[in-house]
């Protein structure tokens, strides 16, 4: 297709100039960090900082924060009022310290902070979280089980997919719908990694046991396509 060819040509041009662009962008980000992060951390450390000031600090950290802010933000991941904004701040920070902090929340927290931490681990595709998330698939809190299913799907390893396949016949209602969603995500991840037989197996599970006919039909077609490839 004409447009696709043009896109690929453009992407090649962009790749050629990406080093220079990365340097320029990095300098800009670096300046903002130097100017902002220490000040933002101080706002969070001050016990008398108003909620709005803390929220604003966490919002900006989502743009400029790095590993240095994680020790200060991590305790807020359990805070009923600020847990979501704490995740907002650290979820995009590409540092393993964030994953460790989120996994600690999953081990200890309940309710919305727990649901949020599970979701963020999925967004970050934290493979180390798979055992803990698999255990949450049977959680009595439906929102926890739903979040775990979606996140396991995002992580999309063979172990994550197996946990979801095991959970499919044991769940009902919204939890089962989340497991279906997780299985689609996992199958797509496996296929993208070149693990076609494993992906096809996941789709075949969906084709047999998904509660909606439309999901079964798509899964069956995708399984067939993978088996033929």
């Amino acid at each position: 297709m004409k447009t696709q060819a043009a896109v690929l040509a453009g992407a090649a041009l962009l790749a050629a100039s990406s080093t220079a662009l990365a340097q320029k962008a990095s300098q800009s980000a670096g300046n903002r960090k130097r100017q902002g992060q220490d000040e933002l951390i101080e706002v969070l450390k001050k016990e008398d900082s108003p909620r709005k000031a803390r929220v604003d600090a966490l919002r900006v950290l989502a743009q400029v924060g790095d590993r240095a802010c994680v020790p200060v933000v991590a305790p807020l991941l359990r805070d009923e009022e600020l847990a979501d904004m704490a995740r907002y701040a650290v979820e995009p920070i590409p540092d393993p310290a964030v994953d460790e902090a989120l996994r600690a929340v999953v081990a200890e927290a309940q309710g919305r902070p727990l649901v949020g931490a599970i979701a963020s681990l999925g967004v970050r595709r934290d493979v180390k979280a798979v055992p803990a998330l698999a255990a949450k698939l049977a959680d009595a809190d439906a929102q926890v089980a739903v979040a775990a299913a979606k996140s396991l799907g995002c992580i999309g390893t063979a172990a994550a997919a197996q946990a979801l396949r095991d959970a499919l016949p044991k769940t009902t209602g919204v939890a089962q719908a989340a497991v279906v969603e997780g299985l689609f995500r996992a199958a797509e991840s496996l296929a993208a990694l070149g693990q076609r037989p494993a992906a096809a197996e996941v789709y075949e599970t969906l084709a047999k046991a998904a509660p909606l006919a439309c999901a079964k039909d798509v899964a069956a077609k995708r399984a067939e396509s993978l088996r033929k490839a």
Partner: protein
Amino acid sequence: MTDPVSTADGTAAKGQTRRDCLKTAALAGAAFAVPTIVPASALGRDGAVAPSERITMAGVGLGPRGQFVFDWMAVEPDVRFVAIADVQKSRREEVKARIDKKNGDQDCKTYADFEEMLATRPDIDAVLIATGDRWHAQAAIRAMRLGKDVYSEKPSSMTVAEGRAVVDAAKRYGRIYQTGTQRLSEGPFRTIIELARSGKLGKVHTVRAHIAPWDSADLSHAWLPEEPQPPQDEVNWDAWLGGCPWRPFNSGYIKGGWRGHYDFHTSCIGEWGAHTFAQGQAGIDALDTSAIEYSYVKNVSGDGMETAFASGVKMILQREGWRGSCGMTFEGDEGSASCADGYEKPDVSSPALMAEGEKLLAEYVEKTGRPMNHVRDFFDCVKSRRWTVANPEVMHRTMTTVHAANVCMWLKRDVHFDPVREEFVGDAEANRFLTRAQRAPWII
């Protein structure tokens, strides 16, 4: 891997029948009420459409715009609304009265929780979503996962990641989705799109796209003053916020004052760009990609921002230049064509182009079978399972151009986007805007 539906222009007419998803039990297993006395019209007699051909609809968050679209949809003979979900009680009751008046009964059911409605009503084929912008993708994704087709008001997403999630949901569940970018189905706009696509303007080098002239790209993070929160049954504030960061209640938000706030709006660029970028990208056959270069302009709105596609075509954002709203101009090396709301016919650079345009429009309708009626296109596609003119991929790609233009304005510098990887090129700072952590438990 091939998907049952996968092309940007929706020409792959495969998939399931709309009733396929109803063959198995509803997720929550709840039966829906059957009226004791069934009027003849409901059974397809008296010239009415038979139930097997009828598309059963529900509304989600229908304010003034949503009620306008409801009125537009409700005149279609094969469409019947049976339920409304809204977090605001007054809106639920207002829309129920409207639906009941149209149906001539009192049967429209109301729901405070739209997911409960979707999970317990296997009779509902499709939903009209007209919430505030923050909920468009969130509601559409949830509805498609529960087997419903979706007509959603624009914009289709708040972030690049959210837009991709809408595409994924439509493909995973084989659902039909249309965004309310209705100018893609209006004769004058479609005429200039086809003039550009056909080469009648020569090689198109520049597209001019209207952005809303009353607002700013510089969105607010301020909170409106806190007011006493109403009882949950009147306004479920937690659900109204959904995945957005918490803030205290203020009645201004629920009366439309959410616009201009970063958490809820896509700025003056998204306000009209959701329409005009789609029109522009349709005219240059760029519905499966996004602009790759964005040049920062030192003003509050992005007026004059120049974007460029990999093909070399420029798209320039403008606050002025037309006699109506949502204007669009294509400039080629052999001619130009322009249109905006209120134009009976497009402005073209030569009289001959008008005749060519009329011919091209007729050919487009004949070749594609698409009506010049956006909601009818949706209903036709619900039945045929062909993707709509404003399908998820089209809207994701055009909204990606919107989002990247906003990021350019927020960072106050040029940015470069890779439409294949769907990320900014070597730009960690800009890439932090690709997604936003969602508030628990409103996580897709």
